[in-house]
């Protein structure tokens, strides 16, 4: 009965947003075909997940806390609530080129419910994120089904987001963006020591997809030694597809290696590859150390240019460095202390992690206009930066 109620809510919500017919068909199929199997999925334990995060690099410092509380209500239902903050202090190359450094804060609230039915977990959630010039709302629904004796888990998800884009100092500026995510994942046990995951995600956007503050530049027709700025102009739709595969292997001693590969392509002409390798090593019963290497590379969007030859030279204009040809390398390291079956009152499990990641980004066709020295337009040094990401996480199961 409760499942029916959840589904009806979902149908109402999704129909309201004209969800694709195929997704509902898949849901029904999944529920129908995968249910008659013995074993039992479980809901996550009640827990509090606290995180302090800090990003420092490229002129940006972003930090803040995140707190998530999960509480079961009976054997089949589990609620979550999360509060997340980004405190931003911005003086990046984009900001310095055309504006002044600023600070702002983004607050995010999420509510979710998970419903366990046989070997399936249905999840429904809502997230609101707000800044002084941007408001984002997202609803999501997912169903995760175990089958084949618990060796396979299929997860299907759908999310829909509505963003309101504003602009500080211009009360008349108001734009909207709409986003839909379709996710399909398979997690497969291969052997007693290995696990394989395959994910597919299609995202489609519609509306105002650019950053209202960013600008692009073109050669000054009256002075070949300088350039002028003009507003960005992006397409109003974007569809992207990503496919990822990840494998985990348990080594002959208590340690694991993980490999991941992701391919990404979108309707703006961007192709990207991500490769990651990670190693987790248990020192003893409670301490583990981890290390990882990640490499990312992308081709620029078709309409991207660091420097246009003249004003309004094409329909779509962008000099957003995230759309340029770039590569990124991350070196990650971490230490985890886990205490199962604690003797602390009311706490069943405690896990503390300290994680440090060093990121480096190199741009192939984005030049640093703030570089000191006399450079002709288009001859400035290519931009690059690095950043340090720190995460301190405490998870308490109660």
């Amino acid at each position: 009965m409760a499942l029916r109620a959840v589904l009806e809510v979902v149908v109402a919500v999704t129909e309201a947003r004209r969800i694709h017919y195929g997704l509902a068909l898949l849901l029904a199929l999944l529920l129908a075909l995968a249910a008659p199997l013995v074993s039992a999925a479980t809901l996550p334990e009640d827990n509090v997940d606290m995180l302090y995060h800090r990003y420092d690099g490229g002129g940006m410092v972003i930090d803040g806390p995140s707190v998530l509380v999960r509480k079961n209500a009976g054997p089949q239902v589990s609620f979550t609530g999360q509060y997340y903050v980004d405190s931003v202090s911005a003086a990046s190359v984009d900001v310095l080129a055309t504006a002044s450094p600023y600070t702002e804060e983004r607050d995010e609230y999420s509510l979710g419910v998970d419903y366990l039915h046989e070997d399936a977990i249905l999840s429904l959630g809502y997230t609101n994120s707000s800044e002084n010039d941007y408001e984002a709302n997202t609803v999501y629904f997912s169903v995760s089904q175990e089958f084949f004796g618990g060796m396979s888990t299929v997860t299907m998800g759908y999310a829909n987001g509505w963003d309101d884009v504003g602009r500080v100092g211009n009360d008349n500026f108001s734009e909207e963006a709409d986003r839909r995510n379709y996710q399909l994942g398979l997690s497969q046990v291969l052997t007693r020591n290995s696990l394989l995951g395959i994910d597919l995600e299609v995202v489609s956007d519609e509306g105002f997809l650019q950053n209202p503050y960013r600008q692009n530049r073109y050669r000054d027709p009256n002075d070949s030694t300088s350039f002028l700025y003009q507003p960005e102009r992006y397409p109003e739709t974007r569809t992207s597809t990503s496919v990822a595969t990840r494998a985990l292997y348990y080594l002959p001693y208590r340690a694991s290696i993980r490999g991941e590969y992701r391919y990404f392509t979108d309707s703006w002409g961007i192709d990207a590859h991500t490769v990651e390798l990670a190693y987790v090593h248990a020192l003893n019963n409670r301490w583990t150390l981890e290390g990882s290497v990640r490499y990312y590379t992308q081709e620029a969007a078709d309409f991207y240019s660091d420097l246009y030859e003249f004003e309004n030279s094409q329909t779509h204009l962008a000099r957003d460095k995230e759309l340029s040809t770039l590569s990124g390398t991350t070196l990650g390291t971490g230490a985890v202390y886990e205490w199962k079956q604690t003797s602390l009152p009311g706490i069943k499990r405690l896990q503390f992690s300290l994680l440090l990641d060093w990121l480096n980004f190199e741009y192939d066709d984005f030049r640093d206009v703030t570089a000191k020295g006399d450079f002709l337009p288009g001859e400035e040094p290519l931009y690059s930066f690095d950043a340090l990401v720190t995460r301190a996480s405490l998870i308490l199961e109660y």
Partner: protein
Amino acid sequence: MRGVSLTMLLGLVLVLMSTAGCSDIKPWVKPYERDKLADPVMSLSRHGKADVYMHHVYQARESARGSEGGSGGGCGCN
């Protein structure tokens, strides 16, 4: 684009279902053989929200998005 992808999804799910439900292949890793799979060193989402946070870090600086595998786990370990 979207139509094609959903057809792909449908095909994939159907293949999975048919191999799971209508064949003689039995699950070869038994529920009592999952010590190692249940070990936290084999978790794809051990750090909870700290893992999700990294996805945000990358999404803000790279064009690629999606398939981050946030759902994690799935070893059927109970």
